[in-house]
């Protein structure tokens, strides 16, 4: 078992038993559920919307080179720069070099999961640059020195009291109120200084629009707006899979992203930026750099079954509905992307050996697939990952042996029947001796959380055979 898997098991055990944590998550998710339903009601034909979004992303991904090149050409024509980074190191180096070239001392960042993926902030901080997360949720977890809990609402695991305490410790001991409005005001005042002082603003991009050659960012707080309006240098860090063919595609993608992400009809700001400020414009960045990050995505294109995983628009709906996520929370996963999409994607971005356990940490209930706005067959991909792991020899040989033995039994009905009868008999004796849950009990894991399984004296097969022999139909209903 990989260390990541061990850590996951431990964290999951702790979080599963944490009823307070579960309550916080439940309240947050109830709020999302209600908002999401309202959001869905604004769309006349939700299934048609999902279908359309799936088609748009499929077209984009199936012609990824063409659309990326179209996007790049337009950005460069406007005086912007496009850098293709094969991996985290290259992406971080590029941004670091840019910062060094322009004497950047302060960076303001709006939320970007890709920057988490490539660990950009630590790289910049190592170079002596102060990085401010400006999305309120990200700002909060940055102060706590922990990763985001959820890709859309990074601080949903905290209550107002904890946040007020945090602000008192890190920002201003005089903070008296824990009202969310007052806490937002504190963050606003603090971050405003940073917005106006920073030499570089870093953002992500929800979409890269090929025909217009613009990036599209969907936000609510206005921090993304300020990051991309005030500093002299604007850097966009984005995955190569974010591209869409046309500007008009946003007419359905924007509402669907907002509905799935927060239940809104549309996010407050749908920002479109195509390059540095033009001559005659009042303001805007003088330097515009788009860093296209590959980091394993191009390899996923070759996977006929799982290419569609690249359709993900990072809305977070699968996290919200996942019962596993609701019970263990976002930090337990130990990956940049938690929840179902994280479990599917991470083995491809990192290693299957190290992260395959996430594909097993699912009951395959399929709720994720049912809500995905781009119709990714998430739970089937988890199954495929499991198969891929065994085919790659990444699973325990003892487990393989066990299934080989199981297979042999199942191919011989009489062995199966005898095996079943023996197991029931042995367990009846064991439990009769009061040894349920002991080291001798093969069902001890089951019995940790549940009362013992029933152990009937006859299997159905035996009942059926007896019934046929005696020609007595009483047990099985009149014919």
């Amino acid at each position: 078992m990989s260390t990541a898997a061990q850590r996951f098991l431990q964290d999951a055990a702790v979080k599963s038993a944490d009823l307070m944590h579960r309550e916080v998550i439940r309240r947050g998710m109830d709020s999302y559920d209600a908002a999401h339903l309202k959001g869905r009601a604004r769309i006349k034909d939700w299934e048609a919307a999902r279908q359309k979004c799936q088609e748009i992303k499929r077209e984009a991904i199936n012609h990824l080179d063409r659309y990326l090149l179209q996007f790049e050409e337009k950005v460069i024509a406007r005086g912007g720069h496009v850098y293709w980074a094969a991996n985290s190191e290259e992406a971080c180096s590029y941004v670091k070099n840019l910062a060094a070239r322009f004497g950047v001392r302060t960076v303001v960042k709006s939320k970007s999961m890709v920057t988490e993926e490539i660990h950009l902030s630590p790289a910049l901080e190592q170079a002596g640059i102060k990085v401010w997360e400006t999305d309120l949720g990200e700002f909060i977890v940055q102060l706590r020195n922990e990763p985001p809990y959820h890709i859309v609402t990074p601080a949903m695991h905290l209550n107002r009291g904890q946040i007020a305490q945090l602000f008192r410790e890190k920002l201003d001991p005089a903070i008296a109120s824990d009202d969310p409005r007052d806490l937002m005001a504190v963050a606003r005042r603090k971050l405003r200084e940073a917005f106006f002082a920073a030499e570089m603003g870093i953002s992500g991009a929800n979409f890269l629009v090929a025909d217009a050659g613009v990036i599209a960012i969907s936000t609510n707080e206005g921090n993304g707006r300020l990051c991309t309006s005030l500093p002299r240098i604007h850097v966009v860090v984005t995955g190569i899979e974010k591209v869409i063919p046309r500007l008009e595609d946003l007419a359905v993608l924007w509402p669907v992203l907002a509905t799935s992400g927060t239940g809104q009809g549309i996010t407050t700001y749908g920002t479109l930026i195509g390059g540095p400020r033009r001559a005659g414009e009042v303001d805007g960045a003088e330097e515009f750099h788009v860093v296209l990050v590959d980091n394993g995505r191009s390899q996923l294109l070759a996977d006929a079954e799982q290419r569609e995983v690249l359709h993900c628009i990072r809305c977070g709906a699968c996290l919200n509905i996942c019962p596993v996520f609701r019970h263990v929370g976002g930090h337990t996963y130990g990956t940049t992307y938690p929840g179902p999409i994280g479990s599917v994607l991470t083995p491809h971005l990192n290693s299957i050996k190290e992260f395959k356990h996430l594909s097993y940490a699912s009951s395959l209930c399929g709720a994720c697939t049912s809500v995905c706005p781009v119709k990714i067959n998430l739970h089937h991909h988890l199954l495929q990952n499991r198969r891929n792991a065994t085919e790659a020899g990444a699973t325990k040989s003892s487990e393989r042996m066990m299934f080989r033995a199981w297979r042999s039994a199942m191919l011989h009905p009489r062995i199966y029947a005898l095996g079943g009868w023996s197991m029931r008999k042995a367990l009846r004796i064991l439990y009769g001796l009061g040894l349920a849950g002991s080291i001798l009990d093969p069902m001890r894991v089951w019995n940790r959380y549940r009362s013992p399984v029933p152990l009937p004296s006859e299997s159905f097969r035996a009942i059926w055979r007896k019934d046929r022999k005696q020609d007595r139909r009483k047990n099985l209903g009149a014919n």
Partner: protein
Amino acid sequence: MQRKVSLFIPCFVDQLLPQVAVDTVKVLRRLGYGVDYPEDQTCCGQPAFNTGYWDEARPCAEHFVRVFKHADAVVCPSGSCATMVRTFYADLLASSSLREDALALASRTFELSEFLVKVAAVTQVGATFPHTVTYHASCHGLRELKLRDEPLQLLRQVNGLTLIEMVRSEECCGFGGTFAAKFPDISGAMGNSKAENVAATGAEFVTAIDPSCLLHLEGILGKRQAPTRTIHLASILAHESRTNEAQKDESLPQERP
């Protein structure tokens, strides 16, 4: 000429919950179907398949296809097992010589409530069950077989039955087969959340179309010493009125000690 169906009884139902199979037969016979039980059936292969061991699952699936090759219709009192055949045999047996047979078999394989409502075209099956019942929407039946209404339609026609809706009835109970073995803490936590939702209804019974969910829930509820008992849909539908109501109903799941 009597219509005939072949029973597909999941391995763990055969071994641990035989009453579910007995009741399935009872319901089908009451509706006038001849019931056949191919005794050579063992397991559909789901445990190995779900754990990623497709090479080990494949021969079991092929055995299954051979056993049921001549069945007119296959009826199974389990959403997840019916799903295995209907949804996943195509992938699992994609390069098998039995691929065509598997696809043909899949089109003739039904979960019980699906069979009753869509094939037999009945919702009234002559059952009496004067108790309060809440329904857990098992995941495979709901999302793979798209059975949202069928079990409820049947329950609503049961004489004397009061259906109480559970909050988050479509949230997974946490069993998931392999998942319960590998991640027992999460599985237990999910089961307990479901048990809380069950308890909140105050219902005497919780039912579902998947015996694996019910096995797991029965264990969870038992550990909590909760009063609600689990009962499979087939057992409710098989239940008939007692001539003497005061007499203890031996056919019902026993109350917890």
